[in-house]
């Protein structure tokens, strides 16, 4: 394998000169320099897929917004992270997440510890800009410890990545497309019947919302251990 040489690159974020290594993403360099970019599907320790589009930034000369978590840095680019256009787009993306599924905080187990909720507070989203679709999905509560409620899922694919990359089981994946996309176990079998699931619970810990949760908890009782993954990866010496 030919390895590309790591070089130091200099570019601008919000008008400030920053430097980073050529194998770093815009998000990583921004965080190293204390510039906050909102993220949702990104989780330290897992790969980046850019599925939520929360971290979009403007790059001068490029017509479309670019997700900062997957875009590698380039010499001399000019990145804007907080223009009014970008902020409006982020709000729209968040609105669409809310409209796709049924996110009713008052009856949700993750109320108070939900990243979708926190993000809306952070971005000051007061009401959804798109009408709710209220599509109904069947809840899978077959597993003895965990529940999968697709009605609260934002399809960030964190659970899929953690199962594949950390646990190594790849018991979960996305099935279908568009509005009917769901998280499934094996061949869309009930969770309890899944042969590859090891019941380790990592998918539940990393879920940003109340889509995957432990049984026997009621509203506002969920405590997620999202930091656990970074610790695991560090212990394995990959970070």
């Amino acid at each position, binding site marked *: 394998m030919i390895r590309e040489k790591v070089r130091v690159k200099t570019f601008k974020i919000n008008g400030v000169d920053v430097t980073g290594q050529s194998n770093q993403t815009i998000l990583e360099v921004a965080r190293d320099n204390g510039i906050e970019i909102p993220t949702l599907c990104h989780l330290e320790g897992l790969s980046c897929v850019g599925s939520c589009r929360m971290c979009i930034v403007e790059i001068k000369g490029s017509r479309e917004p670019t997700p900062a978590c997957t875009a590698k840095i380039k010499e001399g680019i000019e990145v804007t992270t907080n223009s009014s256009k970008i902020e409006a787009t982020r709000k729209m993306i968040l609105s669409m997440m809310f409209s796709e599924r049924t996110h009713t905080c008052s009856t949700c187990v993750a109320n108070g510890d939900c990243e979708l909720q926190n993000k809306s507070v952070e971005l000051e989203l007061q009401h959804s800009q798109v009408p709710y679709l209220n599509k109904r999905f069947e809840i899978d509560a077959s597993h003895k410890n965990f529940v999968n409620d697709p009605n609260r899922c934002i399809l960030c694919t964190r659970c899929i990545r953690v199962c594949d990359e950390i646990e190594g089981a*790849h*018991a979960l994946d996305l099935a279908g497309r568009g509005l009917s996309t769901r998280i499934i176990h094996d*061949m869309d079998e009930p969770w309890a019947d899944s042969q590859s699931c090891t019941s380790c619970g990592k998918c539940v810990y990393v879920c940003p919302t109340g889509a995957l949760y432990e049984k026997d908890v009621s509203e506002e009782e969920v405590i997620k251990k999202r930091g656990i993954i970074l610790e695991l990866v560090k212990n394995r010496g990959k970070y």
Partner: protein
Amino acid sequence: MSIATDDRYNTLEKSMKKLGYDKSALIETLHTAQETFGYLGIDTLKFIAKRLRLPYSKVYGVATFYNYFRLKPKGKHNVVVCMGTACYIKGSNKILEKIEQKYGIKVGETTPDSVLSLLSARCFGSCSLAPVVVYDDVPKGKVTIEDSLCDIEEMIK
């Protein structure tokens, strides 16, 4: 029929072997499987997953992502109604609605006696003949509602 004695699994095995049991040849393999079996059953998908050493969920995810792949057996006859822009304007949605009503099935479904499958398509590229309906791979243009119902009757007789 068990996997060992079923010739169709042999065909599938040969096609995977030809591609070196490459994980990235999943879609190609699914194509062969659908051609051989007519649809992708759960057992077939599990067989492919095991041979290509892919997770079940991944294979199922790919099979459900593409419209082309069917997870349920097809009926003996099939009708495809074009829902492209030109056909739609010429009233193909009404044709589809009538067929749905008459046979009590929705698009993508098969009648309980597995005689007729109803499908829709984005465009056949024959917009000048709109509305187009394909009966068992034979396309017919400028179809009216009455025509289509008669033709289906004729076909499934």
